[in-house]
Structures are given as C-alpha cells and as structure tokens.
C-alpha cells in the first residue's frame, strides 16, 4: 500500500516579541494508508502544532505536505474545502469543541449541511447511521452536550469527524480527558472504525501506553523536532535516543513488583525561541558531548527505525 500522507521538512514558526518560536522545525515523515502514526512528546514539543499545520488549521512556514501524492502545501479556499472532506480532526476536549447551543443531532449533521450534496431525508438517514456507528443511542438525538458525560461527548466528536467519510483523521489527544474505563471504550471504537473504513490516523498524545496500544509507528518529538521514529514495538523494545529512553523510563507501571532503573531528567524543556543549532536535548542529556553542538542528522539505524543522535548512531 502506498503512502497516503507525506510531509517533507515541514516548519511552523511563530513570531513572538522575544523572537521566532520554532514550534515545528523541519519534520519529515510518511504514513501508509490504513495505518496509525502516533506522535508523542511533552507539552510544548510541537506535536499539536504539527498536526494542525498538516490540516491547514495553521499555515506552514516552510516545507511540503502531500496528500495522496498531490502537493497540498499551498491551496486556495475552494481546494481547502475539498481537503476538509478528506481530512478531519478529533479534539482533546469534547466539550470545548462542541457548540453548546446545538443538539447532538444538529452537531453531527452540520458537516453534511455545509457539504450540501444530500437531500434532507438522506441527511437524516446518514445522521442516524452515524450515531449508531459510534454507539450513541437514538434517544440522545435531542440532547445537548452539557447533558452528556465525557465519553458520549467524544463519541459525538467522532461521529462529526466521520460524517463526510474522510480518509484521514487527526486525533489530537482524543482520550486524555477521559477516565480509564471510558478511555478503553473509545480506543476500541477508534480501532473498529479504522478496520471497517480503512482510515488513516495521526494520533497525538502524551500518554505512552495509549500510543503503544493504538499505533503502528511512533514518532517522538522534542522541541519541534523529530528525535526518533520506529515501529511501535521496536520503539519500546529498543529505544535509541536518550530522550526516548528517559521518557519511557518515566512511565509509572501498574505493577507493584516492577523494578527498573529510572533515568531522571534534570531541568525542563528549554525555550523554543531562537534555538541554537545542534541537539536541543543536549542541555538535559546525560550523554552529551561537544559534538552535540553540531546540527544532528536523522539516520535510519535499522529498517524503519530513525534516530537523530550521533551517540545513538555510534552504538
């Protein structure tokens, strides 16, 4: 299967009073159709900005985005409407992203109305179908978002994203606001939908156990850059970048007998404003050497396992 989405050297800078903030700085990757790419990193690493730039919710500063082989980096308004049918988004906070004055049914139907190709009756039928697909009871049609719990609200968000039958969905922390028992219900729903509809996902999250469960490949970001990318199991079995290692060792495991060595990072993420060339993680890295001040290159260490660290390379 071919790649549905390819991103080349994508950059998104913001101008701030203190200088240029490099939110996304030269990220490249490709996703195969029907697969899930997990993007992990801590707050401020640029993972959400990356997703939103791909979706044209933000304009990119530099680089290219290809969707189904077509360059969509610069598009006019008409083309953008077309892209929106193919690429959708599910947000973290299902409450903030739903109009409080619209009923469940109106929210799910809205994309169909905007698209304007179906008759009223067809839209009604399609909405019923969508509600069933995501497991929302028919009796909730007239309910408003504030009457529902987080899990149901997120189901509305998913139904709305599915309405136009997209090929690609950006999931931006879709289960982070949910309790674990509800989180598992939503994750399973998303996997079912992917199987049934051949959807491709980018799954942005800070939760590493969730990302392992749902992703085929995982990309780790640090301060706007990709530091490592590998198939999900490979990344957890054989992390190469010092940051990935520290990140994985920091996850508290639900096992009272777990004994392991934790790599405690000193300090916190440094400022992404006017960053220096060289490895951005070096200031916190226990292995850092003088060479880390040089710009790092992404190297394929083994099949599909990429890392951006000269130390990891030499091992």
């Amino acid at each position, binding site marked *: 299967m071919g790649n549905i989405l390819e991103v080349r050297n994508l950059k998104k800078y913001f101008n701030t009073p203190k200088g240029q903030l490099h939110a996304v700085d030269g990220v490249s990757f490709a996703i195969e159709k029907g697969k899930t790419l997990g993007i992990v990193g801590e707050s401020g690493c640029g993972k959400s900005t990356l997703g939103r730039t791909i979706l044209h919710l933000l304009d990119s500063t530099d680089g290219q985005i290809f969707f189904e082989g077509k360059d969509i980096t610069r598009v006019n308004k008409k083309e953008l409407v077309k892209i929106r049918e193919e690429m959708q988004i599910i947000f973290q906070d299902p409450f903030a992203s739903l109009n409080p004055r619209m009923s469940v049914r109106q929210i799910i139907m809205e994309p169909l109305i905007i698209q304007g190709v179906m008759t009223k009756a067809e839209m009604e039928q399609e909405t019923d179908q969508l509600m069933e697909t995501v497991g929302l009871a028919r009796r909730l049609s007239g309910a408003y978002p504030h009457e529902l719990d987080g899990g149901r609200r997120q189901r509305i968000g998913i139904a709305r994203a599915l309405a136009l039958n997209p090929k690609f969905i950006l999931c931006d922390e879709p289960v982070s606001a949910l309790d*674990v*028992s509800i989180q598992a219900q939503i994750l399973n729903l998303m996997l079912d939908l992917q199987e049934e509809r051949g959807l491709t996902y980018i799954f942005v999250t800070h939760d590493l*156990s969730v990302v392992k469960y749902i992703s085929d490949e995982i990309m780790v970001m640090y301060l706007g850059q990709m530091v490592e990318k590998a198939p999900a199991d490979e990344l957890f079995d054989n992390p190469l970048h010092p940051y990935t290692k520290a990140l994985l060792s920091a996850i*508290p495991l639900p096992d*009272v007998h777990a004994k392991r060595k934790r790599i405690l990072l000193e300090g916190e993420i440094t400022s992404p404003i006017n960053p220096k060339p060289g490895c951005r993680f070096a200031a916190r890295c226990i292995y850092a050497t003088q060479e880390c001040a040089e710009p790092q290159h992404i190297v394929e260490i083994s099949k599909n396992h990429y890392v951006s660290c000269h130390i990891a390379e030499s091992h």
Partner: protein
Amino acid sequence: MENNLLKVNDLIIEYHSDKKIVQAVNGVNLELNKGETLGLVGETGAGKTTIAKAILRILPDPPAKIKQGKIFFEGTDLLELSEKKMSHIKGNEISMIFQDPMTALNPIMSIGKQIAETIRLHEKISKARANIEAIKMLELVGIPGERFGEYPHQFSGGMKQRVVIAMALACKPKLLLADEPTTALDVTIQAQVLELMNKLKKELNTSVLLITHDLGIVAEMCDKVAVIYAGEVVESGSAIDIFDNTAHPYTKGLFDSLPKLDSMESRLKPIKGMMPDPTELPSGCKFYDRCPYAVEDCKSLGAEKKEMGSGHYVLCRRAGEVC
C-alpha cells in the same frame, strides 16, 4: 493503637442542590498509619476529593452535608473540633496539595513570600527567620534559593507544583493530602515530583493520602490502597493485595482497561456502561449494571463486605468465586 494516624469511620456525605441530593460518599472507612502512603483510587465523580476535603473540613456547607461518620486524627474526632482548634490543625498537622498548581498560588505575591507567610501563620517566628526557612524549603524541593523573589508566572508547571509541595510541607505536617498532584504534569516532570515526594516523605516521616486515577502511580508510591466506586470503598488492602490478588470486579475492570506496555494485546477489555448517577443510586450493589459476574442476589440483597486475607477487604457478594 499508637501507630494509627487517621481513621475514617462510616463517613456519609451528600450534596444538596435545588431538588436533588447527590450521594457523594456512602459509608467510607479508611485507616492510615504513621509514615504510610494510602492511595485513594477511582474515576471522576467517585467521591475521592470529597473525602479529602471532609478530612480537612474545607467542604463548602451548603451544598455539602456530612450526614454521618467520624474522622479520627490521632484519636481526636476532627468533626467535633471547634473552628479555632481546626484551623490550628490545618497546615500545621494536615495540609493539602491540589491538582492544579496554577490556581493554588497567589499570582501577585512572590513565591518566597508565600511560603514564608505560611510558616509565620503557624509558627511564631520573625519575618527574617521565616524567609530563611522558606529558602530552605525551596532548596529542599530543588528550586534555587535565589528564585525566592520571583512570581508564579515565572515558573513552569512542574516547578510551581514543587513550590506548592514546599508550602504544604513547610510546617512539617503529619498528614499530607495530595489530590492528583501530578496529573497536570508531563511524565518526565511527574517522575521528578514523585521522586521528590517519596524523598520528603521519608525525611519528614509524613503520612500521605494520595488521590489518583493512575494505577501506575499507585504501584509506585503506595503501601495501601482503597478503590472507590460511587462513593464506596469497593476494595482495600495492601498494594500487593490489590495488584496481585485483585478481588473486586471493578478493580479488575480498571486493570483490564489499561493498555499494557509489556504485552501485545489486540483489544482492551473496557468496563461496559458508566458509573451510576449519584442522584439516583441503584439499590443493591452499585456496580451491578456493569458487572460481568452479577447475579440476582447482587441486586436484591446488595453487596457484602468480605475479608479475603488479613486486611484485604472486598465489597462483593461473589468475591472469591469470580475474578
């Protein structure tokens, strides 16, 4: 019992709103010994925070009403104390840290002053002396003393939470109530804060009531665990009891809902349905509707408290037969 620090007996708390009564806490018993960490685990709305606030007597009344129960702290029932005596206990003997460090700090006062103020509120010492103590506390939580004069917005989330911890521990309380202290933080920062809490707990011999929804944090931090569901403790015991000999179907459901890092499962097994509406709690076992092992008796006769092993209690009629 010399060793016992906190004992909650049969606590019942309701919230009264216009017409509805929310049954938030329904007969909770907890016990915490000196130097121990007790994890209070459960999902949103289970009643965890309400219990902690009741211990510190900071529940807003109205709407909250403590209907029944006793909270013994070193043998004294806190619910019987006068406001004056209680305010002496707050901060001095028991203090609390909240989930969101941003809202717990005063944005227009330097963090050093805020810590010093807390100290002077409880100890009769000079300003200069309190400032020295505050600097000591800052350094204890890994923040350089020279940042004494800086304001909350100049610190990152993880540092702010460390400031809050420094403040809570400034008077060396015997009991720390920690309500989701690391939920708002990134994992690497969370690891730093948890490590710090463990270190301070040992140094100051503080007991901790740790409220969390994260079973990973429980495994790492807690000696004992109480699992809360719909305002009831459904399972309690040592951490090993809960993790290795899980006996309540709800606890088991929580574990099955978690994606594991060390195994390749194809699908998670979520708990079906949702927690019951606390304004209309069902009769009988409150987990009945969601429980895969439920039988008729669970509904008609209700749940039954059983002791599975020494100190390992389960609120389930079928515990031992199933799970």
